[in-house]
């Protein structure tokens, strides 16, 4: 997401989409969100006409007026925006009288902008933006994107309609599971039907590692529930040169607020992208908060949700998440275990065998087999390697975690497990 260079058009676009999504969700029925872009390439200056329409619960002007005091620094005269670059702003409230009970309503907002330097860039950005919304797989919203390229010679249109079966799952699925499945599609470049500006050669869904975390708290004063859901997904490092060179070589962070793509503070972004994922490619951390919340409590919710997701990921994928060198060492475990077990059982000293099996906790006669001993030794060595690696990694993560939320002093205190830093024996592992 181009957080760094966000034009007023893009900011406005984001806000309009967010409110359209809100209306659709409020309606409680299947809604359609249609985004239409018309690029006039040969106009002077080249301009783009944007239309966003939805069949969600009807809006009123007040909702849009709120935007004025919001984050978009556009002088607006009752939403007919007269700025040089953004003009012909038009709000169309379709509210059919008498049919309110059947919720036959809709909103259409359209604007023209000549602010964007390159129409193609803007279209690309919108496509990416819509791809991100689709990650959420919001139930009951079908998102349609129409793009028309118009020049003096004629016009060419593209249409991207979300596949119906994406959301019409017969079993009700929780938001976080929608998020996981949407993220998988996003990573695999599947089923989004969009011109793929982030093609991926990773095609194996089973190779994705996923951790999820959810936090919520009740705001007693206002009776609102704040909720943050986080998904961390790690994809295997692609081996093909095409993917390595291009866009999927690093951590990508997506943040949604109220079911709409939003930006995350740069410092948190840095912290997340700086976590050492070793050989793997982290795809996304996607926290999503249900309701607007005060920023500090939201930060804590986010922090905890991400931590839960990371813990979940580590629990489910301990072996895969070992550092490269621990993985290499672990390859020797089967051999080592077999040899140690053989050394015990090929000894002609029976007393020694007894002693060893006792040490391994093998007491009953049936259990005193070489295979049993081997598997116990294997478990022990594997456990030791994993534990050492975890301890080492935790040190690095603590640092990342402190950075995650701008490390206010009170957060610093929360940084867990100071004592992990004091294991001198572990330092040797660092410079392997």
């Amino acid at each position: 997401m181009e957080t760094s260079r966000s034009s007023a058009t893009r900011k406005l676009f984001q806000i309009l989409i967010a409110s359209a999504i809100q209306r659709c969700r409020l309606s409680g029925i299947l809604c359609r969100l249609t985004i239409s872009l018309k690029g006039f390439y040969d106009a002077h200056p080249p301009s783009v006409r944007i239309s966003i329409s939805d069949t969600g619960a009807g809006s009123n002007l007040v909702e849009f007026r709120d935007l004025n005091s919001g984050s978009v620094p556009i002088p607006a005269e009752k939403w007919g925006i007269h700025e040089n670059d953004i003009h012909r702003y038009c709000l169309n409230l379709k509210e059919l009288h008498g049919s309110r009970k059947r919720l036959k309503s809709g909103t259409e907002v359209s604007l023209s902008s000549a602010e964007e330097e390159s129409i193609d860039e803007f279209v690309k950005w919108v496509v990416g933006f819509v791809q991100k919304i689709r990650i959420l797989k919001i139930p009951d919203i079908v998102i349609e994107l129409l793009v028309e390229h118009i020049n003096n010679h004629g016009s060419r249109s593209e249409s991207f309609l979300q596949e119906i079966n994406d959301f019409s799952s017969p079993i009700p699925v929780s938001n976080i599971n929608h998020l996981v499945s949407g993220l998988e599609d996003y990573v695999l470049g599947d089923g989004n039907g969009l011109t793929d500006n982030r093609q991926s050669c990773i095609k194996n869904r089973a190779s994705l590692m996923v951790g999820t975390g959810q936090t919520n708290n009740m705001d007693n004063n206002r009776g609102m529930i704040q909720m943050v859901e986080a998904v961390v997904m790690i994809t295997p490092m692609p081996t093909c040169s095409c993917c390595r060179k291009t866009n999927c070589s690093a951590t990508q962070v997506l943040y949604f607020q109220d079911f709409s793509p939003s930006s995350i503070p740069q410092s948190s972004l840095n912290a997340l992208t700086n976590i050492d994922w070793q050989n793997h490619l982290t795809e996304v951390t996607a926290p999503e908060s249900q309701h607007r919340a005060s920023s500090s409590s939201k930060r804590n919710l986010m922090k905890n949700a991400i931590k839960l997701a990371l813990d979940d990921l580590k629990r489910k994928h301990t072996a895969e998440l070992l550092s490269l060198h621990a993985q290499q060492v672990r390859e020797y475990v089967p051999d080592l275990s077999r040899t140690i077990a053989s050394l015990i059982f090929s000894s002609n000293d029976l007393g020694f065998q007894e002693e060893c099996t006792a040490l391994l906790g093998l007491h009953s006669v049936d259990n005193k087999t070489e295979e049993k001993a081997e598997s116990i030794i294997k478990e022990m060595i594997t456990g030791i390697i994993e534990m050492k690696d975890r301890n080492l990694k935790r040190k690095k993560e603590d640092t990342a975690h402190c950075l995650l939320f701008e490390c206010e002093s009170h957060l610093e205190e929360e940084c867990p497990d100071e004592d992990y830093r004091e294991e001198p024996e572990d330092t040797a592992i660092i410079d392997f």
Partner: protein
Amino acid sequence: MAGRVSPSEPADLLAKIRGFVRLVLEDLCNGRPPSVALDRFKTYCSDPSGNCSCSTDLPCGKDIVSLESKSHAYRIDIMLRLLLIIQQLLQENKHASKRDIYYMEPSVFQDQGNVDRAINDICILLECSRHHLNVVPMGKGLVMGWLRFIEAGRKVNCIKNPNDGFPVPICIEETKDIVSVAQYILVVEKETVFQRLANDKFCERNRCIVITGRGYPDAPTRRNGLTFLVNPVYADPYGFDILTTYRFGSMQMAYDAKIFRVPGIYWLGVFLSDSEKYCLPNRCLLNLTAKDKQKAEAILMRCYLHREAPKWRLELEIMLDKGVKYEIEALSASSLSFLSTYIPQQIQGRHYI
């Protein structure tokens, strides 16, 4: 060497192996990875001052080998595998050569050098020599000349057929009653040279013993040569390296080096200067390859050359300077029996260093 009382009976060693395994298990139960602390021995370093401790046979530090890295894990893996093999050899009173062991699992051992190093590690761990482990060298050496000995109750009388090569006895413990009236022992690197000398009836005409280790010298070759003046023949960096192995012991078997090396060995030739002296045709001089040069430069750094063999070092420097080498066979180009006259000449003229 015969008659030396071994402090490491098989029973003692087996007990040490069990003790080690027990320790590994206890470590595992306490959440610690298997680890071995090994005294570090080396035959040389690159300290030119000569003030290092390489010549003292004392350990120069300790290696802690654990599961900290891939290479450590591999080293422990190989060590444990060899311990298992050795435990079996000792329990069944059998012997195996280093080569036999290598061929038990060549894909795991990858290289004979890895087996050799693991054997050295185990010698250090169990504080014994390699032959105590029932690991014998590859029986590849040949000997001929003025020598008689009893190997495993069988009399070997080399002097009766002084022009025939006999296998160098493998098991030191079973070799007794070595009798020799030789004036010197000649160690040649290559078997072809050994055969040449045999064909020339060298031992009939010179009262000596000729030994070949076929490539890098093996322990028994060196051990049998212990009490004699030995004169090998070399003229390239790799030959030079082999030469140093006879005199100073190999790094691979640094712990056992004190038993196997022959400090009194002389370098008889051939030297680079011989190529002029004997009018070697230029076509026989080969340019040193980049690898040769690298090897030579590395050898020049070795402390023992500074300390104990400056003349050897000088020869190597000259070789590196001129950038050429030649094969010992090149000298036979003019006359097949060249070596048969060259060697006695070098000895009489005291041209060895």
